[in-house]
């Protein structure tokens, strides 16, 4: 029985007081020594449950062993065989609920820090290897696939399809590729340079990238199918914000998280007026929601210079869907939490600017369909809380542009596109779907898994 090393190697982070004033990356990554030490803890167990725990099936023991043996090019090769976006996944994947949760050493509360190792390999490649397209491409098939969106699902599907020899065009509505990786996740969690580097790797596989292209307006899905594309993969994201629908929600200073994060991350409003897009900084900011987007919004608001930032969440701390790590980071940075609290209305001043939010308390009742205890209002607990900026981070719904302009594309009652989970097929021949547009708002890695499955099915379809 090999001696178990249960000392998980910690990873350095920027100190909270300092990092709350800048947009630089919070997590600082492993050094070579740390990576080797952590990789050496892996017992290379024969069952390797970690591989099944990974939505894209990375050969985790393989790349971890390569780090241990100091064969970094091999670690890169193994990792990128299954994952085209390792620098991104190594930073934003919730490994703690996926591969690390089922790691054999998880039972001993010391799972291998697979996410940190993945990030280490990806960063090593960026620093040490020229942009070599090491994957072997198959002979061109002569088939053309249109991929709608350029976020994680699309990038993954496009890369896999290109490697299989198909001709791929990615259509992106915004002026840069990356989708939520660029506009949603902040710089301090996912540097945009890393995103563009990984997008660059994908496009280096021979994919055509059409920016500023809104499918459903500039060209419809039906037009793509009749103008030379044999298959279409729809992954435009769940790009429509959900609002509370309470009085005063249209007052100035109330943002959807999508708008706030797009201004800050994509349009770099934190560098206004050097960059032209402004955003309201606020003195006292309330962020409504408890997921990763709410944490991101709160931490951006803090970095912009708000004096106080509050998370307002209707359930309790253990129910928060955000990654535990990000909740901890937010708390360390000084973000305050108003839990078991819900908004009732927004109050404005004479100029139409929000000046307060009416809140009331909740308590936990019976569990709902998701298994979490249902929050129940406590009547008579309303109070007025002064704020000057509010960010509504309740989640997103599917954007209606594509469903409303595509014939015979069945949708579900939530507005998502009806999709077969195993294959990505929709009700419309020649059209597949994956990512948030199929599932509702979820994770980067689950979108990538959907991209992989759809690419495999599209390939099968194209080969007849």
């Amino acid at each position, binding site marked *: 029985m090999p001696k178990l090393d249960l000392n998980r190697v910690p990873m350095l982070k920027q100190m909270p007081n300092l990092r709350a004033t800048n947009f630089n990356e919070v997590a600082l990554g492993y050094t070579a020594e740390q990576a080797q030490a952590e990789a050496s803890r892996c017992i290379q167990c024969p069952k390797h449950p970690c591989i099944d725990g990974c939505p894209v099936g990375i050969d985790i023991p393989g790349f971890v062993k390569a780090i241990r043996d100091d064969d970094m090019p091999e670690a890169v090769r193994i990792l990128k065989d299954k994952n085209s976006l390792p620098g991104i996944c190594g930073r934003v994947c919730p490994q703690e609920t996926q591969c690390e949760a089922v790691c054999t050493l998880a039972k001993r509360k010391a799972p291998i820090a697979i996410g940190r190792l993945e990030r280490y390999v990806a960063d090593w490649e960026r620093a040490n290897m020229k942009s070599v397209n090491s994957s072997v491409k198959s002979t061109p098939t002569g088939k053309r696939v249109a991929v709608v969106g350029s976020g994680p699902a699309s990038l993954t599907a496009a890369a896999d399809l290109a490697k299989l020899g198909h001709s791929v065009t990615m259509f992106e509505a915004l*002026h840069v590729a990356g989708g939520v990786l660029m506009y949603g996740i902040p710089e301090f969690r996912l540097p945009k340079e890393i995103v563009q580097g990984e997008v660059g790797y994908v496009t280096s596989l021979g994919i055509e990238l059409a920016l*500023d292209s*809104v499918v459903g307006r500039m060209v419809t899905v039906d037009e793509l199918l009749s103008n030379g594309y044999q298959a279409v993969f729809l992954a435009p994201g769940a790009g*429509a914000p959900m609002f509370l629908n309470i009085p005063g929600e249209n007052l100035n200073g109330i943002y959807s998280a*999508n708008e706030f994060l797009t201004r800050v991350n994509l349009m770099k409003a934190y560098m206004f007026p050097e960059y032209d897009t*402004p955003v309201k900084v606020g003195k006292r900011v309330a962020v409504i929601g408890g997921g990763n987007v709410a944490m991101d919004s709160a931490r951006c608001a803090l970095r912009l210079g708000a004096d106080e930032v509050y998370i307002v969440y209707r359930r309790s701390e253990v129910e928060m869907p955000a990654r535990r790590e990000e909740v901890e980071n937010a708390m360390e940075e000084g973000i305050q939490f108003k839990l078991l609290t819900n908004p009732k209305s927004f109050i404005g001043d004479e100029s*139409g600017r929000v000046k307060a939010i009416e809140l009331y308390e909740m308590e936990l009742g019976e569990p709902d369909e998701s298994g979490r205890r249902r929050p129940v209002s406590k009547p008579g607990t309303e109070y007025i809380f002064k704020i000057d900026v509010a960010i509504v981070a309740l989640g*997103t719904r599917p954007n209606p542009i594509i469903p409303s302009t595509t014939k015979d594309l069945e949708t579900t009652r939530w507005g998502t596109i009806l999709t077969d989970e195993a294959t990505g097929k929709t009700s419309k021949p020649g059209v597949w779907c994956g990512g948030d547009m199929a599932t509702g708002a979820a994770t980067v890695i689950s979108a990538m898994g959907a991209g992989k499955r759809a690419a495999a099915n599209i390939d099968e379809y194209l080969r007849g």
Partner: protein
Amino acid sequence: MYKILLRQDLVPNIHLFKIAAPDVAKKAQAGQFVVIRVNEKGERIPLTIADWDREEGSITIVFMEVGTTTHRLALLEAGDSIADFIGPLGLPTHIEKFGTVVCVAGGFAVATIMPIARAMRMAGNRVISIMGARNKSLIFWEGELRSVSDQLIVTTDDGSYARQGLVTEPLKELLETGEKIDRVIAIGPSIMMKFCAKTTQPFGVKTIVSLNPIMVDGTGMCGCCRVSVGGVTKFACVDGPDFDGHQVDWDLLFARQRIYLDEEKRSFEQWQSQYGTHS
């Protein structure tokens, strides 16, 4: 990058650009808009489509110099390019044979009402157009609008050209003559659209306005452009930009358009210190 094929200085501070954007030109329809970004650090702004040429693959936009972005845009000449050009966005204006349609344009919106008047005429409507500007020096495209209208009334606030007064005055007169007017389209500054809608309301004539809130993406993903119509929140970029003028919460629109006045001022002051005041 999208090349500027042609530049015309129509009147002081109002410019016309014809921009090469074949895919947008292929699909553009009256009432739709584009979102542009002048350069890498620029903001995204919406501009209504004034015209298109599907063969040439070009879109015509007309804009007024107001703040930093439009001033920066106005420095460009034919042969220069802008960073991003996205469209066509928004739902096209509903064109149908209604009967008699009155098209009212305030200020430089004469450019954006032109394709609508043209399409209404082509659909068999009798088109009466009203265009107004503050004074004679700001009047442009009079001939263009006349060529697609059965009747054209021109107004200037100060009476320096044609009929003195605001566009709402001839509009009211037309309604009062008892001539059956089936639809009014009013486009221009928000306050002008509000008063056109107020003018037509007692007569019960359906009045379509083209709302112009602040926008960021233009595809419905952020909610910046939210307006209230009939008490319901709508996104101007995907539910509009056309809405029923009698149902619009105008005060909300005005308030939301003012949200960044301080930031706009700060940005423009920085611009002026770099480029000097516009001559």
